[in-house]
């Protein structure tokens, strides 16, 4: 996996290539250096290996800013949310986070109106193709993109885009971005039970390790932090199995308002409880 310095160099050259005007190039570069300094300070303490995010608040943001009335694009809140997503992922990887998981679309979200579901499917397809583009920053950082969920429930164009993104990035050795679509934790556990039962031979019994091996998240470290924006306090069927020792955070800003300072704050909060959670985790692993 690339080191943090290597990732910064890649981002630096990507910035130089893509910034059009001199002023935006300079301001981009200054921001880049400031972030490098800030993340060097944060790295004195533990940096989470895996950050998971429930991106809540796109529709409320659009309503609050009357975007739905003024714009012809009913997905305006989600588009702004996507911008927050890209910057949060970029900053996380700059900081040294190895995995970022985002809850993009729950199985429960299929209960929304067919028009909104279709809108979200089209938006997802568009953004998946943007993220996995050859000249995009994710390819530059060698990001491996995973899609966790019951992908058969997606519309065919979206499912094919997701598959193409996974195939294109499967050999990448950089940080991992896992996007949960058509996902719920209980569906994931059900799928893991099916797979574990189908593997059984003779009179073997299903063990917890078999179930964990058959989860969509198998091979990925458990999340250190789950951030749910907009101040909501529930997990809404997200990573319930994987979050035994995860620090759960619920900052008040809506997802499109989530920025670098909120991410930095999240890491500082995690560093305060790191020793306690590590101790609890090691206690359970010792007893296994």
């Amino acid at each position, binding site marked *: 996996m690339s080191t943090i310095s290597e990732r910064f160099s890649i981002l630096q050259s990507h910035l130089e290539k893509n910034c059009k005007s001199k002023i935006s190039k300079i301001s981009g570069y200054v921001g880049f250096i400031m972030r490098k300094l800030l993340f*060097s*300070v*944060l*790295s*004195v*303490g533990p940096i989470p290996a895996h950050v998971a995010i429930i991106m809540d608040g796109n529709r409320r943001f659009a309503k609050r800013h009357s975007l739905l009335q003024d714009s012809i694009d009913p997905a305006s809140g989600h588009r702004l949310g996507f911008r927050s997503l890209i910057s949060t992922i970029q900053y996380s990887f700059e900081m040294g986070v190895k995995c970022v998981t985002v809850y993009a679309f*729950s*199985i*429960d*979200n*299929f*209960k*929304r109106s067919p028009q909104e579901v279709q809108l979200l499917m089209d938006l997802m397809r568009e953004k998946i193709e943007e993220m996995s583009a050859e000249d995009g920053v994710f390819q530059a950082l060698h990001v491996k993109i995973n899609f966790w969920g019951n992908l058969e429930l997606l519309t065919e164009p979206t499912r094919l885009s997701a598959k193409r993104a996974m195939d294109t990035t499967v050999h990448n050795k950089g940080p991992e971005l896992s996007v949960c679509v058509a996902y*719920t*934790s*209980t*569906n994931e*556990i*059900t799928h893991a*039970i*099916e797979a*574990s*039962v*189908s593997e*059984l031979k003779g009179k073997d*019994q*299903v*063990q*917890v390790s*078999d*179930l964990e091996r058959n989860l969509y998240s198998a091979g990925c470290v458990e999340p250190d932090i789950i951030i749910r924006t907009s101040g909501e*306090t*529930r*997990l*809404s*069927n997200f990573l*319930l*199995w994987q*979050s*035994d*020792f*995860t*620090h*759960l*955070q619920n900052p008040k800003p809506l997802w499109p308002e989530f920025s670098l300072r909120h991410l930095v*704050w999240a890491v*500082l*909060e995690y*560093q*305060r*409880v790191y020793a*306690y*959670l590590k101790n*609890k985790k090691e*206690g*359970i692993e010792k007893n296994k």
Partner: protein
Amino acid sequence: MIEASVIASPILGVVFCLLHVIVSLVHAWSHLVHQIQCLIISSGLLSKYQNINLNRLRHLAVVIDSEDAKNKSKVHQLLCWLSDIGVKYVILYDIEGVMKKSDKAYEKSSANPSETKCMDFAPNMPLIFDMFGMTVEIISYTDGKEAVAKGANYLCSNYLKNQDDTLNKLGPKFTEPDISSALKAVGHDGPEPDLLLVYGPARCHLGFPAWRLRYTEIVHMGPLTSMKLSAVVKVLYDFSKKHQNYGK
């Protein structure tokens, strides 16, 4: 380069400590505001906290750090408060099963022991008893993932019994209601709590059974040693005003 890093490391360390001092100050301020709110609530000045509508709160869970859970009198005090407020079903969870081993202490310390009916202690099974007219269920880490594995084995044995040629080719197909039924069959069919209070240093559910946490509101209460009735009342009031979309 080596000299630069020798100079930079202490500076980074100082700035790091400063950042954490700022975080601590913010926490101290939030704690102060919270204490003032609790004081106002316990004074009875605000009538809205006197009669909380608990219709939406059918099941309440409490996750307690195992070290805190050893303080049996505090746990008992909390149960008394919850019963007085009108909570009907409480799920107590601690990761190491300290409270499961202590259940007899709750029976002995209740005002009227005959009101408390206890079942025999079994480390890998939930413990359920009545206390002050409230159902109390005590669970631990072994009631989570291991219970799901037990449920999977139950489903597997039924699947193998019912196999015919057609099913064999398709492989097992289970639904979420199948999993719920299997958990019930193996004795781990407790209800999903509407609200979960976490007593400990961090907001973390510490392995509470995943199958039961789908839409549970999770609130961090701080250490059990500094628990306050007014803090519990505030959380229950805030919960009564909550609205969930369930994905819509």
